[in-house]
């Protein structure tokens, strides 16, 4: 009986270790490819949200008090900002990748979702476009909606975070 228990523990542990080793090996091969593809996707999304802004320069040191959802901020020569966000709602298992383009007049010029695992309609619906033309003072007026597979609440909060980080940067809050 004792031997059986011990055997069960050993077998399950060995299987877990072998599977983990295989996954680690696969990850070492695929991780660089995946991260390059993601970076390229973000690059493309900058052009999608601000097609006329010209070249972008990434702000290397984000302010310390920048919201946690902000992954990167890019500044264009004409004063536009493209903010890359990774928002997470309470129920989702993965981040919602958002790129937001804010023009020199601080109006939202474009918004695109770059990744989200939990919606089969991801990227095909028009809801995020309701924010185009909104500013920091009136973006909260866009209605949220229910019955969809991604969180409009998380999207709205992320947009607020984007405006917050731009305000910090414009106000000289970068540290």
């Amino acid at each position: 009986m004792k031997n059986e228990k011990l055997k069960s523990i050993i077998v399950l542990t060995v299987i877990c270790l072998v599977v983990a080793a295989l996954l680690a090996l696969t990850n070492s091969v695929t991780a660089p490819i995946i991260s390059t593809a993601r970076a390229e996707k973000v690059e493309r999304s900058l052009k999608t949200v601000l097609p006329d802004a010209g070249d972008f320069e990434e702000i290397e040191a984000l302010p310390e008090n920048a919201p946690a959802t902000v992954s990167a901020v890019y500044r264009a020569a004409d004063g536009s900002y493209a903010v890359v966000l990774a928002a997470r709602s309470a129920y989702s298992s993965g981040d919602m990748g958002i790129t937001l383009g804010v023009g020199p007049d601080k109006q939202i010029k474009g918004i695109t979702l770059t990744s989200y695992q939990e919606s089969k309609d991801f990227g095909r619906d028009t809801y995020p476009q309701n924010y185009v033309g909104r500013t920091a003072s009136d973006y909260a007026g866009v209605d949220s909606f229910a019955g969809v597979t991604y969180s409009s609440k998380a999207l709205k909060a992320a947009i607020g975070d984007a405006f917050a980080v731009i305000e910090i940067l414009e106000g000289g809050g970068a540290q």
Partner: protein
Amino acid sequence: MKKTKVFTNGLLKENPVLVLVLGTCPTLAMSVSIINAIAMGLAATAVLICSNIVISLLRKVIPDTVRIPCYIVVIAGFVTLVQMLMEAYLPDLYEMLGVYLALIVVNCIILGRAEMFANKHGVLESALDGLGMGFGFTLALLAMATVREVLGNASFAGMKIGFLENYKIPILTAPPGGFLVFGCMIALVAHITKGRAPFKKSFDCEGCPSASFCRKDCAGCAEKTETEAK
């Protein structure tokens, strides 16, 4: 059992979706479009074949008490492997499948075949069973997706069918339409197989993953099933 029969069983007679009614969640979600259906079918087939082979190889090593956790670890490992490879080499398809790719781990077809077949048979037979069941799953998804996409969206694999544009039945692309088509397909297969498939021996208490603990509470279950089968 003949090897060809092991393979062909999963296609129609013991089709995992339309006869065993397993894997209903991905079936309904992924049968909206033909491309999604093929992608999901092939991903599940790959996991099914690999997990069946590994479980068959380890069937004499894995103790009975921890067999389910062992199967889950093996299946989850293969699903994660497929996820990583798909995200790296087929990113568009990876995005299309979304969360349903990860949900292959809990797909009843895969755990069901591990428990009902792979842990009782040799490697080659288990691989053929995985292939047959995987193709059966893919074919069922494809058949449902064809009906739903052609009649519901007037397109075939994304290509528009002009003459159907004014005769679309949009409900077929929505969840109620999925259930409707699913029900019709099950009825069709039951008609073709004359409804005999569900009474095969492999679907009685012996083949049930819960048999070992279920029978403790239901002593007469085995006798009852045998009488019914007769």
